[in-house]
């Protein structure tokens, strides 16, 4: 990533590979988001036949046929967006209809849909078809591959929108004495205990959840987690911890609540915080060793974000040598764990293993 001193983020250029992966995931999640609307359409139900409240009275209400056509069209554009076909157009059209569909009826608004709209908006601002897309494959075949380094300034807007749910939600709960004191969630837990029992949650856990002292402490931790994630994402030294906590947060929300696509979107959206540079770390792997071969195979398969330039050697002093962005060299098991912690699928379990801190290079 190149960031000239003058202008900072406004002039920086770099890789949007991580956002290209986010685009693919969000395309699929948009299809999941559209599913209930498509089911209604399949059942012949048109939203304006029942109670609805437009956000804007001036917004024209589409007729049944037109609405169904647009809904079907959006499903198509979301699928094309997922595979990266005509990416900028399909991403923009997907964003436009998802937003329009929510604006047509306030009952269509849910917080996870608002977040989806924000992410889709961010994706329309950037050329997220440059990699991991049909468009990129087709351009390469024709010998017209586009540069992988692009202007990054829209990423700043996207990150502002990306941290908003954590900061807004956390701060609203922080200033609400009943939420901060655990009253809200204690009441929810008490009212829906029967569902947890039916779902097979152990009695010991249910008894713990019934304790007022538990709620007095636990939900404060949740609020602090949200605020830490929202702030920590902006601080380079805290970013990995913030992403780690965000994943834990979203998994817990998904296990305990019905939030449509929010949890999946929240985890996927952490991709927008990946450093926008590609292959700026070198991995030198001795493929004469089992460790070197294993790591080489893993990185080849799982380095979806192109974090590493891999060099395979034979007879090296160490099976694994990692040269980081700042030029520092690391060897041995820690270097291997560090490398694996930068692969999306392995990041979550591997990050805690780095807590001991970086060893000194030999």
């Amino acid at each position, binding site marked *: 990533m190149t960031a000239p001193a003058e202008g900072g983020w406004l002039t920086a250029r770099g890789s949007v590979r991580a956002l290209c992966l986010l685009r693919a995931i969000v395309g699929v999640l948009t299809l999941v988001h559209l599913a209930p609307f498509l089911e209604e359409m399949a059942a012949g139900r048109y939203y304006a036949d029942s*109670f609805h*409240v437009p956000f804007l009275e001036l917004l024209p209400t589409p007729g049944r046929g037109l609405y169904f056509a647009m809904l079907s069209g959006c499903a198509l554009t979301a699928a094309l967006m997922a595979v990266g076909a005509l990416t900028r157009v399909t991403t923009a059209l997907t964003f436009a209809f998802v937003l329009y569909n929510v604006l047509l009826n306030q009952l269509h*608004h849910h*917080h996870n849909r608002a977040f989806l709209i924000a992410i889709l908006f961010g994706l329309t601002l950037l050329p997220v078809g440059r990699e991991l897309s049909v468009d990129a494959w087709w351009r390469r075949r024709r010998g017209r591959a586009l540069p992988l380094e692009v202007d990054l300034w829209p990423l700043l807007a996207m990150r502002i929108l990306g941290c908003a749910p954590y900061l807004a939600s956390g701060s609203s709960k922080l200033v609400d004495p009943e939420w901060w004191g655990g009253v809200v969630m204690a009441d929810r837990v008490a009212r829906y205990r029967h569902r947890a029992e039916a779902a097979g949650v152990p009695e010991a856990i249910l008894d713990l959840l019934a304790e007022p002292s538990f709620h007095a402490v636990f939900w404060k931790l949740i609020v602090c987690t949200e605020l830490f994630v929202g702030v920590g994402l902006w601080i380079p030294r805290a970013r990995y911890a913030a992403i780690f906590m965000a994943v834990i947060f979203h998994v817990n929300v998904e296990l305990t609540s019905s*939030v449509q696509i929010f949890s999946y979107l929240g985890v996927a959206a952490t991709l927008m915080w990946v450093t926008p540079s590609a292959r700026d770390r070198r991995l030198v792997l001795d493929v004469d060793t089992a460790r070197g071969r294993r790591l080489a195979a893993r990185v080849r398969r799982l380095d979806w974000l192109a974090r590493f330039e891999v060099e395979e050697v034979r007879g090296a002093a160490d099976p694994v040598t990692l040269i980081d962005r700042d030029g520092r060299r690391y060897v041995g098991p820690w270097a291997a764990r560090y490398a694996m912690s930068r692969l999306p699928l392995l990041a979550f379990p591997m990050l805690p293993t780095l807590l001991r801190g970086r060893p000194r290079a030999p």
Partner: protein
Amino acid sequence: MSSRSSPYVLRALFVAVVAIVQLAFVAHAYRDPHHHFGYQPFSESATWQARIERVTADGRRFSIQSGWAGRYRWNELVRGRGLDWPFSMGHASSGIDGTLAYFQQALDWVARNTPEDRETLYLDADVIYYQNRRGPYRAHLRSVDRELP
């Protein structure tokens, strides 16, 4: 301002507008019962229940729970957000203020969009609700008056 710096000014302006718009939504959510685009999920624990009657011009009252005018059913006219079956105590998924706001709008919409009903003057609802371990509270809502033939 040099021509070289003007695109950067525009970029900064764009990012600032995005931030301000998002902040505005977040701030507005504290006054908006629906918290639209303000990210205040699970803001409270509330349950509610309503009895809805239709009132004729001569003062007769009829429950609409089983339908009326031969073809209208509340849960077909009002769908989603827990509004479709208010007749038994249920979760107020929009928070109680948001739910009651939607419920009022739903009463008005149903009153305006049931042309085959030729005798109901208005819809009348009595609501009981609980909010964050407090309650029961009561609210009374009434739809707009309908024009009768």
